[in-house]
């Protein structure tokens, strides 16, 4: 017990510099914010930000379910959000602290309410689709002018995929997005939870498995930009980033994103506050700050993802708002589907099939 005074002293000494400046811990996807957003937030509020990144929902989820992550704001995707809310991982938002909530697009927030009843726990950060990015010249070279660049058959038709194996096909390591896409391509309901439907989707994927170079959820950005792969099933904004990187490198690689005509998954990335966030007050300030029309527009202009902020639209670059890959046409919107949240048994079925697709086991 006699050591206590010393320990107290040390604790006080350590705590002092932390207490002097308020801090906020943000955990977001990699390459998913404007370069100056954090800087501006600190300038506006005096709150220091520790900004960490991840590249898969699974990693975020493991931290949320384990608890005591130390983060104040995290960015889960809609279907993961729903499960994590069920597990009790998030605290309800105090809407009195979110003055900019009125900026949000009511229709999109209505869509998110399907995952988070009454929009109690989260607001939309960005949204996007899971489609196909490709290297224009390489596809042209191998498939000629008739290349089915507007269709999932670019990846799911073995005859087509075989011709692209040498230049490289990459696929997101995200079973809950790929299996429904395959099911949809087969004319099945992408939101089906029937085991037989999952298996049919997996069979389709296994048929093209020999032509897939790898399964990864972030590697493809630079590979697509460098011409190391020529087709990637990926997230819209990431593929636009690949396009930008290729442009910057001026390496002669031209990348395009397409929402295939058969349809694609529409998803929402949302901002939420963990139930045990150390600084929920600052978290609310951050979320409200991001919902500012100009700040959100800045982010969209930088990351090329659509946002859920109606007030920001006039401030978003024309080049982005007019791109059907980012803001789909009304016709294309008809074919978008929202992800289905699976129960544990369905999750296991999907994951097991995914392992089978990847390893043949």
């Amino acid at each position: 017990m006699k050591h206590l005074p010393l320990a107290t002293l040390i604790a006080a000494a350590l705590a002092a510099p932390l207490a002097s400046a308020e801090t906020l811990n943000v955990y977001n996807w990699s390459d998913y914010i404007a370069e100056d957003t954090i800087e501006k937030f600190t300038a506006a509020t005096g709150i220091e930000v520790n900004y960490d990144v991840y590249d898969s929902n699974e990693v975020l989820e493991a931290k949320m379910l384990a608890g005591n992550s130390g983060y104040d704001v995290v960015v889960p995707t809609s279907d993961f959000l729903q499960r994590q809310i069920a597990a009790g991982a998030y605290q309800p938002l105090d809407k009195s602290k979110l003055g900019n909530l009125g900026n949000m697009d009511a229709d999109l927030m209505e869509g998110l309410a399907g995952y988070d009843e009454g929009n109690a726990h989260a607001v939309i950060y960005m949204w996007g689709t899971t489609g196909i990015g490709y290297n224009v010249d390489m596809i042209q070279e191998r498939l000629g002018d008739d290349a089915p660049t507007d269709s999932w058959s670019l990846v799911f038709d073995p005859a087509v995929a075989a011709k692209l194996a040498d230049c490289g096909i990459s696929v997101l390591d995200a079973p809950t997005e790929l299996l429904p896409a395959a099911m949809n391509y087969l004319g099945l309901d992408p939101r089906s939870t029937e085991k037989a439907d999952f298996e049919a989707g997996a069979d389709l994927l296994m048929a093209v498995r020999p032509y897939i170079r790898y399964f990864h959820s972030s590697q493809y950005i630079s590979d697509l930009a460098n011409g190391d792969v020529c087709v990637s099933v990926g997230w819209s904004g990431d593929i636009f980033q690949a396009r930008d990187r290729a442009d910057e490198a001026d390496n002669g690689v031209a990348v395009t994103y397409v929402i295939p005509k058969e349809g694609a998954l529409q998803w929402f990335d949302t901002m939420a506050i963990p139930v045990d966030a150390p600084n929920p007050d600052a978290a609310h300030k951050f979320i409200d700050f991001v919902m500012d029309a100009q700040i959100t527009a800045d982010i969209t202009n930088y990351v090329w993802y659509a946002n859920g902020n109606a007030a920001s639209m006039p401030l978003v670059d024309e080049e982005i708002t007019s791109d059907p890959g980012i803001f789909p046409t009304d016709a294309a919107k008809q074919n978008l589907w929202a992800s289905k949240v699976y129960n544990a048994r369905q999750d296991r079925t999907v994951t097991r099939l995914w392992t089978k697709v990847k390893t043949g086991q």
Partner: protein
Amino acid sequence: MRRLLGASGKRWVVSVPGLWLFVFFLVPFLVVAKLSLSEAAIARPPYLPLWEWDDDYLTVTLNIGNYRYLIEDTLYINAFLESLRIAFFSAIFCLIIGYPMAWYIARARADRRNFLLMLVILPFWTSFLLRVYAWIGLLKPNGVINNMLMGIGVIDQPIPMLQTDFAVYLGIVYTYLPFLVLPLYANLVKLDESLFEAAEDLGAKPVHTFLTVTLPLSMPGMLAGCLLVFIPAVGEFVIPALLGGADTLMIGKVLWTEFFNNRDWPVASAVAMVMLVILVLPIMLLRNAQSAAEGRT
């Protein structure tokens, strides 16, 4: 009085590693063991508690199903076998490459040995992850090696090297080679040079000297080195994840999938427990090999 103090001081010194083992091995081990017997749930943390007090009743629920599940689905057995296979051959490759290195260093002039050993350890001065990423840069289709080979006209199409088993072996051998070289070196450097001269003097050609004297006497070092490669390689995750193909099935990746994709912590824990049990035998062998290597003069 002095003896008393000495004894208690000694007990204190001995208790430090004991405490270390308790806090950093036994406690986590028990946590994982406990987890492997519970049941997954959508909760925080995502599993059901193992016991519950209800009035005066203590209800303990042990779920053996996680282990049964590992047997029912051949995926796990295959992943274990594949991991053991990759770890085994990695250890053999390390031995083939590392033995001449260790031998050369042990027989180098005494004042040069430290320098050579430093060269072996040098890669550890940079981050492991960084070095694995460097290999990606070397091996990828547009990478240094392929570009060079195409540049000098040896090949006209890139050789697929990344995302293959070859890359996994390369990564493991590259990463763990020092773990083999160091104990083997320590073994070889202690061998009395006159033993080799005696063999030669008695009519053994260099190759016979190696086979009948050097090799058997360096067995403890070889075994310790191989096991130091084998044991961590079995559970290796980063190298197969970054350098291997999607079809590289290793238990580390399966464990990752269970933990992150299925968010099934109990099954993931069961996989970890089985891995530990599988590794108990090689770990005990390692202990014996190390004490044998140290005992030999």
